């Protein structure tokens, strides 16, 4: 009996084995290897890679070093992008969802598809396309401005326009995904709640504040966290649209890490930067989650 259950456990384990192998090879191993590399003076092409302890990390935190400059500049720019893009991605996503839901059901599908369509296209196509739309001399945007009698704007080579351009392209590209998630969430809100509010004579705005928002709260938090993570990972848009410019003002953290690893060939420092970036991202996600739970807890006490 015992050997039979052991045999059964073994054959069951075979189901998990292939994924487990991939999981170890391509997730656990690189995770450990990455920590290991970050403690070494690891040149991409030189085989001599001495252990240096925390030196790569202290290097990043010592002001005046080039590593410090790349990391801080990249982090500041990435955080700027997060702050500019996430509120728009969340608010416009929700507004689009509400707009689509308020349309007659026959034409709803068409508009949902229209707003969701850009999401299917890959980042390099998005970047090349917007590069051309925002071209200073003959792009569509400046053509339109000039037709209205306005001045042409150097969209990609001056601040704040460079950030505005990257944010516009990003919102256009990814907003459809958030919209779809919000549409699903809105459809889950029980119709009776709105009907009850109608009887009480609530206005549309009151219904939104007191019924819609509380009902879609968990999804809202989910969208905020996933949008923040996605914006933290921004790379293709600034890399292709502004090249990090003007100067290094839109050079995001991932661009700094890639430069450190593949142009300066310093994998050790680059890995340390990647570790720090991950820690910051995890802290922010956890912080957002706890913050939202804390608020909910207080809200429940009042209720």
């Amino acid at each position, binding site marked *: 009996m015992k050997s039979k259950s052991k045999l059964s456990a073994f054959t*069951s384990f075979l189901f*998990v084995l292939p994924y487990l192998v991939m999981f170890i090879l391509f997730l656990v191993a*690189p995770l450990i290897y990455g920590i290991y590399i970050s403690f070494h003076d690891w040149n991409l092409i030189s085989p001599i890679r001495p252990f240096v302890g925390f030196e790569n990390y202290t290097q990043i935190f010592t002001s005046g070093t080039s590593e410090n400059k790349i990391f801080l500049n990249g982090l500041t720019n990435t955080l700027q992008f997060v702050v500019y893009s996430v509120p728009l991605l969340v608010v416009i996503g929700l507004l689009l969802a509400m707009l689509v839901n308020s349309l007659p059901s026959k034409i709803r599908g068409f508009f949902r598809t*229209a*707003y969701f369509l850009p999401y299917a296209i890959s980042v390099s196509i998005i970047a090349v*396309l917007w590069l*051309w739309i925002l071209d200073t001399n003959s792009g569509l945007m400046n053509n339109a401005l000039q037709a209205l009698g306005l001045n042409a704007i150097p969209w990609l080579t001056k601040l704040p326009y460079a950030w505005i351009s990257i944010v516009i392209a990003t919102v256009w590209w990814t907003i459809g995904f958030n919209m779809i998630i919000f549409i699903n969430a809105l459809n889950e809100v029980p119709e009776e709640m709105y009907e009850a509010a109608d009887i009480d004579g609530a206005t549309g705005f009151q219904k939104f504040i007191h019924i819609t928002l509380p009902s879609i709260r968990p999804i809202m938090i989910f969208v905020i966290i996933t949008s923040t993570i996605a914006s933290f990972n921004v790379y293709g848009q600034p890399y292709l649209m502004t090249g990090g410019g003007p100067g290094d003002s839109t050079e995001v953290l991932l661009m700094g890490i890639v430069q450190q690893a593949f142009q300066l060939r310093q994998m050790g420092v680059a890995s340390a930067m990647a570790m720090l970036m991950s820690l910051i991202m995890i802290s922010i996600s956890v912080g957002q989650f706890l913050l939202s739970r804390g608020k909910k807890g207080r809200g429940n006490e009042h209720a």
Partner: protein
Amino acid sequence: MRKRNKILLIVIASVLAVLFITPLLWMLSTSFKSDFEAIGGASFLPQQFTFDNYKSTLLDQTVPVFRWMFNSLFVGIAGVTIVLIIDSMAAYGLARLDVPFKKVLFPLFVSTLMIPWVITFLPLYQQFSNLGLLNTYAPLILPYSANAFGVFLLYQFFRAFPKELEEAARIDGANKWQIFIKVVLPSAKPILATLAIFTFMGIYNDFLWPLVVTSTPDMRTVTTGIAIMQQGSFVSSYGKLMALTTIATIPILIVFLIGQKSFIKGITQSGIK
């Protein structure tokens, strides 16, 4: 009054739809303009309609656009196949079978969904470099299979799968594998389709990873190939760039329009609701 509101909403929605679609039409329109007209003209539609951009892009030996599309399609399909097989097996095992340590394994897998992708980016590159596998299909396909999303998605589905169907098959003398392949998997087709679309789009649209692990034109994917052209010989020719991006966009838009329903349903099924 209500009717007027409805019409106003439709007008707003239509204006927005035009704004969302215009960039794509601009891409299409530019691809039929000569470089001279693209740079000089202020007109939206081409004044002199030309196929030259498509001709020179498709005939240019340095722009193997069909090879890139093949590569993207190949790594996407290979990646999806691996993910569907190993994720469905693992999820079924963890959800329904007596897998040892499953109480530890499942939370361990799911917890890695929290880990930012960037943490494994450089060490993975180093791993493939150590094995001499850079600029091959291996790094373009294999790393995606470690993602726990599919296991998580399918686990929820298999937990809810009716036990009676398995029981009936077991009484008929079927073993675990036969039950899995003949009874469980066929019923999971919709959720597998959803996972396939998510995974395919993730691989097809990935940018930074394929950019660093490939180095020759014949190994590029569509996404990376276009970026290389934009920074290389096409830098000043928007007509050709737009022809190239149009060629690359059409297949994925077709896939997207067909798979859209499944994709949207998948978002609901993935527990995000």
